[in-house]
């Protein structure tokens, strides 16, 4: 971990700030993982907002990214997002046009740097064995799978993200067909984003196929 911290500092990350916000080194690395794991999704949303010239949506997106970047100690990046936020708020299309490529380039660069220090096991990557695929030794029976699915739906009804994530992982122990595996992966992704109703809808579909 010490080596990772030194490398992060060399990448321009203000560790004192980041650890100050998150409270501990362990939680700081969790925040880093989330920051990198959400890059693809966030980037897609920003690109979409720019293509549609939806400045209101852009403002909301960079408003969040400004805080997240600050939280991990990427202060320079946070400042760039803040400038973009103000530009979007003021409909300053010139600053948006000139400032966005620079901010996005920095964003991409920081995520790549973080990946290079091995702190970025992206949560819920599509190849995660826990998201939709049975791993040897974890296979469960149809009865057990139905029980887990019921528990999962109850957890999602209660907006319990931790129980939901755990039960979704257990449900992956049932040998679903590939389409259901894909739905379960999607549902796990929804749970990570706290979209409980959307996840529940998919789980109901999956549960109907349990033999």
């Amino acid at each position, binding site marked *: 971990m010490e080596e990772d911290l030194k490398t992060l500092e060399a990448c321009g990350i203000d560790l004192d700030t980041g650890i100050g916000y998150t409270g501990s080194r362990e939680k700081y690395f969790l925040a880093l993982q989330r920051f990198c794991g959400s890059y693809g999704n966030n980037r897609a949303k920003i690109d979409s907002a720019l293509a549609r010239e939806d400045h209101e949506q852009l403002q909301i997106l960079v408003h969040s990214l400004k*805080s997240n970047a600050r939280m991990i100690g990427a202060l320079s990046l946070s400042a760039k997002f803040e400038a973009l936020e103000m530009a979007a*708020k003021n409909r300053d299309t010139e600053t948006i046009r000139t400032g966005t490529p620079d901010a996005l380039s920095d964003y991409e660069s920081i995520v790549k740097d973080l990946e290079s220090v091995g702190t970025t096991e992206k949560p819920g990557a599509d190849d995660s064995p826990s998201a939709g695929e049975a791993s040897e030794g974890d296979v469960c029976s149809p009865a057990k799978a139905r029980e887990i699915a019921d528990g999962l739906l109850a957890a999602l009804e209660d907006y319990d993200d931790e129980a939901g994530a755990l039960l979704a992982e257990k449900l992956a122990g049932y040998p679903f067909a590939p389409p259901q595996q894909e739905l379960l992966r999607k549902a796990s992704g929804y749970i990570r984003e706290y979209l409980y109703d959307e996840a529940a809808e998919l789980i109901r579909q999956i549960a109907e196929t349990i033999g």
Partner: protein
Amino acid sequence: MQLRVMVTGRNRKIASDICNRLVSDKGYRVIKCASSKEALFLRVLAELPHLIIICLGYETKDTVSVFDVLKECTGRGGITIIVIANDTDQKLFINNTRLERMFFLPRPVSLFALYEKLNEIEQRVEEDKNNGTSLITEFVNPNADDLPPRKHLLVVDDDPDLLFSIKEQLREFYEVTLVPSGKAALKYLSGHRVDLVLLDYLMPEMNGPQVLERIRKINGLEQVPVVFLTGVTTKDTVVKTLVDYKPQGYVVKPSKKSELVAKIIDILG
């Protein structure tokens, strides 16, 4: 007698073993506590343990210095500290904390030595009680199992990464439910009660003030405390709406854990 023992520290394996032993062998009331300043401070005040066992492991200057928060508590007497550590962590602890008195127990832990010390502490506490000299008076709550659950917070923010971070900051003190939108918040609140809502100010579709307005119309939630989460750029706007919507305040995000917890304690107690 049943001592109240708080067990804390980064060496979770030893901490866990000791907790289990103290419960099964000695019948003590064991309180597990995270080794952070805020958790230690709040839990010691809440639980008033007779003894704190700190299980050190792979420490640094920063990690041992959190235990300085115990200085005030132990300085007033009545709380004994036992530190379980190897030589390296022991030296680090001595050189980087301001605690005046503690007992060190090396690893691997000798239960015999530990229990001997515990017997001494039991005797002292018993004597203090009989002589009326103890600063801590023992009270055994016959309704311990009925104690109220932890306060429940609802956090509403369209940014899942921020939701995750806030829960990580608050989970050791509170039950925390996370939702990514005003719509989800209102749905949750229609069937659940919470003690406080942390509400993002700027969200798509339904912003913070709109959500707050609707919360206030839910039967039973008219008085639920609401704290806005705001970025620096929207702080001025939030301040202006404090008069209209009367939330219990705001917190600028990202917020340090201590600031966030302090704000919540300020409102909930």
